[in-house]
């Protein structure tokens, strides 16, 4: 079945190619179902390929398919092809799986939108790009996918482009990502210069040719790319603004898949990172700092989606913490479970927003548990899962990350543990404000609001994701090698760089109990504080609400000076220096020509006189020369 792997990205591409020209004619809801079917087909193929690869011996699970050579230049040859191995298959499987659910959800969510078919054009293009990103056999294909998902992210954030806030949020995401992409590109250039190849297998087998400086530079530059894409410090403000897009987009792109591309990239290049321990420390610290800061910001947000956005940033920080500690399997584990519960939380909040007639402020909600029992129950599972309450999936994944962090540095573990408490707290606050307490929407809005659970297209994905979020931990239980399926499955790819975690059973239980205490503690704090209270200004300081003023600082110290510089270039450098030089040359010729034209009298005798004078001079010259 491995030879069918090319079908995985092909199906969404076909969906895109059908819907781009004909989507409007096919219309609502058939266009949406076609898109869903294409992604579903892709998921089925992925599962079949997965089964094929899983049936092979561990040593021969790496398949590189080179379809054609794209460009040849000197020693550099770049092909187009895919690499099928445990890591890329894991990614492809959860991407197509979650995408199928979210496509299905979108058919219900976007039902009343005028640009229904266009939405699915972008979604299918996104899935195709994301699959090329994870399946690419060289860094160029990965980079193309990387940019492809970036463009789709831009289109989808600015999907309701008539809203100025959506249009500028799209631009913001694009610009922040460009900063990261700069790092990615520089890393590619460095590798081309040193190794003349960007194919993963070639790079990893020739790492000994790179000097330590080059290795550090490559890993840090790739990390810069990952920081941009995965919204880490200091480039995370775009992700909060990205919530301007439709909620399914937030769930798919800005929580489950695209933003994890940076983590994927770091895991993919783990042989490089393995050789540069200091870069790992930096990554771990940036990750855990992001996790902590974003979690504190999440505690003070009032927009239902912004809480989730900062929570995504925070969880991504955990993933980078795992990557930095060398626990790539833990990073992927958390990525998978996070995809389940965060997609669930976003879709549930989308369902709430839908029911509340586009109200997003959690202070205006409350008591929705009775009106929307299914949404409430699934959101509750999402909360328990992200908080890390055993036995939900988040408990196992976060525990895996934290115990690995302890091995590297107890300080990392401590910050991660505080963040875990905060996570349980802010998600609890959100759950309580939205689903319990007083029905504040009855007072705030018009009386005609009758919130209810959504149609089956929207409910079915919620249920599936709730099941996955509950039992996702089963793929990697830390009780002996026969239960760590994910770790054994990923071992051929990340095994060489893996941190060797030598926890004893006692330690394992201690970590487990500690994690559970953090989670339950955070949830209890939330319960005691927010059960019946809507406003607690002391706990929602402006400093946290404004996201540590990071956005404002970037605006003040980078954006505005840059704009001033741009205006200076436009008004002074361009108008006066460049235009001045051009106009100056023209003016010089104009003045000199004005003087010289007076020589032309137009009288025949003048010209005759000049000619004869010339003749006389020549004759005189020849006479003098001949000594006459």
């Amino acid at each position, binding site marked *: 079945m491995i030879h069918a792997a090319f079908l995985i990205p092909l199906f969404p591409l076909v969906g895109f190619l059908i819907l781009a020209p004909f989507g409007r004619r096919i219309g609502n809801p058939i266009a949406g179902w076609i898109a869903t079917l294409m992604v579903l087909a892709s998921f089925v193929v992925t599962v079949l390929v997965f089964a094929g690869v899983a049936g092979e011996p561990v040593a021969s699970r790496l398949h590189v398919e080179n379809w054609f050579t794209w460009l040849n230049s000197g020693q550099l040859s770049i092909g187009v092809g895919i690499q099928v191995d445990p890591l890329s298959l894991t990614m492809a499987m959860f991407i197509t799986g979650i995408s199928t659910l979210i496509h299905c959800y979108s058919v219900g969510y976007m039902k009343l939108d005028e640009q229904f078919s266009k939405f699915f054009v972008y979604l299918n293009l996104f899935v195709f790009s994301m699959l090329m990103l994870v399946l690419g056999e060289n860094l160029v294909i990965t980079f193309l996918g990387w940019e492809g998902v970036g463009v789709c992210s831009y289109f989808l954030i600015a999907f309701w482009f008539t809203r100025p806030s959506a249009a500028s949020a799209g631009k913001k995401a694009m610009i922040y990502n460009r900063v990261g992409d700069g790092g990615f590109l520089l890393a590619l250039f460095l590798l081309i210069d040193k190794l003349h190849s960007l194919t993963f297998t070639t790079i990893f087998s020739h790492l000994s040719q790179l000097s330590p400086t080059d290795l550090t530079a490559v890993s840090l530059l790739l990390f810069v790319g990952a920081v941009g894409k995965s919204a880490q410090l200091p480039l995370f403000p775009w992700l909060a603004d990205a919530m301007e897009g439709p909620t399914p987009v937030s769930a798919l792109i800005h929580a489950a898949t695209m933003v994890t591309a940076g983590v994927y990239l770091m895991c993919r290049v783990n042989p490089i990172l393995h050789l540069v321990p200091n870069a790992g420390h930096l990554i771990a610290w940036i990750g855990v700092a992001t996790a902590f800061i974003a979690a504190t910001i999440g505690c003070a947000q009032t927009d239902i989606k912004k809480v989730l956005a900062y929570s995504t940033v925070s969880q991504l920080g955990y993933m980078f913490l795992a990557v930095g500690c060398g626990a790539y399997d833990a990073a992927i584990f958390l990525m998978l479970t996070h995809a389940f519960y965060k997609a669930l939380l976003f879709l549930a909040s989308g369902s709430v927003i839908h029911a509340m007639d586009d109200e997003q402020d959690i202070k205006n909600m409350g008591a929705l548990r009775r009106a929307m029992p299914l949404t409430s129950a699934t959101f509750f599972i999402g909360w328990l899962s992200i908080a890390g309450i055993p036995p939900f999936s988040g408990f196992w994944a976060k525990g895996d990350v934290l115990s690995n962090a302890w091995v590297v540095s107890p300080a990392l573990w401590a910050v991660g543990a505080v963040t875990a408490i905060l996570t349980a707290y802010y998600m609890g606050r959100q759950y309580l404000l939205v689903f319990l307490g007083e029905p504040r929407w009855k007072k705030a809005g018009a009386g005609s609001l009758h919130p209810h659970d959504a149609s089956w297209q929207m409910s079915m994905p919620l249920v599936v994701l709730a099941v996955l979020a509950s039992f996702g931990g089963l793929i990697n239980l830390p009780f002996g090698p026969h239960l760590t399926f994910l770790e054994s499955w990923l071992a051929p790819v990340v095994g060489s760089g893996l941190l060797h975690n030598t926890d004893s059973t006692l330690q394992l239980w201690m970590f487990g109990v500690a994690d559970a205490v953090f989670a339950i503690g955070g949830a209890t704090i939330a319960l005691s504080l927010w059960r019946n209270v809507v406003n607690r200004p002391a706990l929602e300081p402006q400093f946290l609400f404004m996201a540590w003023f990071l956005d404002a600082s970037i605006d003040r110290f980078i954006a505005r000076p840059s704009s001033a510089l741009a205006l200076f270039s436009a008004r002074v450098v361009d108008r006066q220096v460049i235009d001045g030089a051009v106009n100056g040359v023209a003016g010089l010729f104009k003045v000199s020509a004005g003087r010289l*034209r007076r020589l*032309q*009298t*137009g*009288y025949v*005798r003048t010209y*005759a006189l000049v000619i*004869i004078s010339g003749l006389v001079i020549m004759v005189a010259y020849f006479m003098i020369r001949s000594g006459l």
Partner: protein
Amino acid sequence: MTVNVSWYLTLAAVLFTIGAVGMLVRRNILVMFMCIELMLNAANLTFVSFSRELNDVGGQVAVFFVLIVAAAEVVVGLAIIVSIYRRHVGATADDQHLLKG
């Protein structure tokens, strides 16, 4: 007293000078035109003199070229002059100064 080549050359120089000065000082287009012919023929005389002195037929060949060019010039030049006079009776060379910058 023998008439050697320097007499011819002197005559040619005198003719050329008369032509050149006439070209510069006269305003009548027809007279200026004749002055040009005078200069051409002064040059021809020089060619012929040297041809004879140096026993080289090349100089006489050059004279033929000059004659042909002069004939062509007369055809074009006279036509222009006639059309100028048709347009403006009694025109002088100074009236025609369209090339003034």
